[in-house]
């Protein structure tokens, strides 16, 4: 069981810790009911609090009922039930720069500075790096865990002026340790161990990333220990990937989103098919009903119905692929394309200040990654000068691709409606809209940012209804609704 250092705001005690933990989960967006909390306590009563991973498993099984909440859960769990406190046991040799037990005073700070120099000199760093290199090359899991803790303590400490004011920075620790510099040597060691060059490089990169994550976790744990987990949870717990804003996504998030996209579209397609089946009962099929009634002596016990003719729309997608919203556009395109059997025809166009048709890049059974790469490569065709100009794009679209529109077409425009103060081309858009059956505008910006700066959201919104679409959940909901 983790040992908790008593802090004034949080009284010690398992029940309080448990309740706080539940409250934190709720705050992070997980719906944890009272009954589930009781289940967790009942479960923990059976298996005991002896093993941290068992406690985690029990909490996860009773409280987290959606797998995409698991990452959030793990972050919160690590904050409320840290693996160790301070430097833990076994690191006695390592003097802590910031003794919480002793009252801090100025003389102490000087001594600490001296102390730190000894702990944290170039030699110590070199010695640490060599141990890290060995551990990374051997993928020695427990040793890496210890090194992460030690690394944060030694190189990531930012001593403050008083108790509770010192802090830890993973960023600083990683800047000092510089595992990137070790990469070549680790890769070489792996090659010597029989891996091929490219594989060795991927392995090295993933191990270093993993180590970085551990150091970040450890820094977070230490800060939480001092300032209280609530404080850290507010800052560090990120929304789950399907609720993450497209515009706020980092590189790794985008990769994860892309990985989610295919299963997501499959799920959506299944749901749509099911809903269509449920609505399949059309008008009464009289002939079949009478025929079936013969076996029950002429009493029509079961009625038979004609299947309803499914209604399928033609979809034209027109997306802004300029830097800021390019990812949003490609996600939407891929999702729409994955659902192409729900539409009779899908045509896709991209624009920045010129329009370019990209329908050909989507072929059934194509690899998602390849399609995305081709899409970004073709961006150049959509630009003449490279500055977003909605007005020009709409005018060109009406001129060149008017054949794409018809009375059965639904038009989907994707973009942030930021046209660099140029002509908005409202007339062209009105003409385009008049030729279609439905039209929607998806805006990846939060509604509160509409009409700020060069955004012409309201002006465009008056012509074409504008919908806020910031994350994968909103996107799937929207696509589901239009189908």
């Amino acid at each position, binding site marked *: 069981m983790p040992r908790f250092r008593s802090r004034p705001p949080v009284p010690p005690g398992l029940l309080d810790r448990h309740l706080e933990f539940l409250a934190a989960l709720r705050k992070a967006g997980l719906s944890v009911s009272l009954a589930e909390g009781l289940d967790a306590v009942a479960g923990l009563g059976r298996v005991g609090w002896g093993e941290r991973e068992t406690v985690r498993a029990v909490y996860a099984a009773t409280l987290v009922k959606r*797998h995409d909440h698991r990452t959030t859960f793990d972050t919160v769990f690590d904050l409320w039930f840290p693996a160790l406190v301070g430097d833990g046991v076994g690191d006695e040799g390592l003097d802590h720069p910031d003794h919480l037990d002793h009252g801090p005073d100025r003389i102490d700070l000087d001594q600490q500075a001296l102390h730190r120099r000894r702990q944290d000199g170039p030699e110590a760093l070199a010695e640490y790096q060599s141990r890290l290199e060995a551990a990374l090359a051997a993928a020695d899991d427990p040793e890496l865990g210890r090194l992460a803790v030690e690394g944060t303590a030694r190189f990531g400490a930012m001593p403050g002026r008083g108790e509770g004011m010192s802090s830890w920075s993973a960023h600083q620790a990683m800047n000092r340790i510089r595992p990137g510099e070790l990469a070549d040597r680790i890769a070489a060691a792996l090659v010597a161990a029989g891996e091929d060059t490219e594989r060795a490089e991927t392995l090295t990169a993933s191990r270093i990333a993993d180590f970085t994550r551990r150091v970040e976790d450890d820094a977070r744990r230490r800060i939480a220990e001092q300032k209280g987990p609530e404080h850290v949870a507010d800052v560090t717990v990120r929304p789950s990937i399907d609720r993450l804003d497209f515009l706020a996504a980092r590189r790794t998030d985008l990769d994860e989103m892309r990985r989610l996209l295919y299963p997501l579209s499959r799920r959506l397609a299944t749901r749509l098919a099911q809903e269509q*089946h449920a609505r399949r009962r059309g008008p009464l099929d009289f002939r079949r009903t009478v025929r079936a009634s013969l076996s029950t002596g002429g009493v029509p016990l079961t009625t038979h119905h004609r299947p309803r003719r499914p209604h399928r729309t033609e979809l034209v997608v027109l997306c802004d692929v300029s830097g800021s919203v390019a990812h949003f556009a490609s996600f939407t395109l891929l999702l729409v394309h994955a659902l192409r059997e729900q539409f009779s025809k899908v045509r896709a166009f991209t624009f920045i200040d010129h329009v370019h048709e990209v329908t050909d890049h989507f072929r059934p059974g194509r690899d998602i*990654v390849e399609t995305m790469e081709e899409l970004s490569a073709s961006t150049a065709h959509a630009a003449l000068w490279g500055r977003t100009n909605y007005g020009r794009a709409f005018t060109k679209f009406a001129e060149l691709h008017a054949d794409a529109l018809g009375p059965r077409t639904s038009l989907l425009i994707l973009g942030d409606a930021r046209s660099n103060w140029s002509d908005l081309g409202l007339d062209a858009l009105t003409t385009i809209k008049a030729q279609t059956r439905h039209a929607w505008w998806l805006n990846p910006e939060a509604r509160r940012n509409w009409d700020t700066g060069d955004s012409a959201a309201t002006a465009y919104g008056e012509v074409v209804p504008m919908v806020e679409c910031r994350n994968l959940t909103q996107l799937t909901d929207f696509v589901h609704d239009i189908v």
Partner: protein
Amino acid sequence: MTWFSSPTDATRRLADVGYLTDDATATIGYLAGALGKPLLIEGPAGVGKTELAKAVTAACGADLVRLQCYEGLDEARALYEWNYKKQLLRIQAAASDDSTDIGNVWDDEIFTEEFLLTRPLLTAIRRTEPTVLLVDEVDKTDVEFEGLLLEILSDFQVTIPELGTIAAAARPFVVLTSNATRELSEALKRRCLYLHLDYPEADREREIITSKVPDLDQRLATQLVDVVARLRELELKKAPSIAESIDWARTLIALEIRDLDNDAITSTLGAVLKHASDAERAIRELRLRTR
């Protein structure tokens, strides 16, 4: 009925019947038995969700009652149904026999056990022997059907209007599996313990493969697990799961391949990857094509 006495006991007994678990799975499996709560298992296809239910059955010497879910599954096929043909015959027989009063037949005789056809859910509830109830692919059912499950999962009882409420004689060990093609309702999830089964770690996967395919030698098993792990890192439409690894191991045995080199992988890739674009991608990324 105690199912497992502790998580370690669960690990050991499941391993005895050939199902190798990790600690989390064993703990949750133990809890599901100890707390008498249903166990909802989600995860990609082929990681052993249904197998877990079968393994619990075998490990505890219980019997398995299985309800395979599908779209349009209803009460009559999941819970119970009145044998109306037999009821009709009984009424007709009574009508031709003047001595009995038809009113009595209607009430007392035709809505009895004799005319009740029990379906899997009711069967599982009424059994007195240890029972594992497997509700397979629960996400395939309609939302209305979930409502039906709620009474059974929380109170282990079934209400039949004509007979009254039938409570479980002994609590069955309930396992629900789902491929997460649709989001299950909060009400259903709240009543269950949740377990997400994922692809196993390399060591455990190797153990599983060697226990299922004993002829496979250790070196080949290690190679195979390594390649499968690398395939899972790629962005594929369907990443290979344990079932596919085992199939692949069997394929290698059947073809008497002793060493998993690039040619061998390329020629047998069809056993693990089921999409043409996935196979192409794997060949390109793993540089399998011999130059």
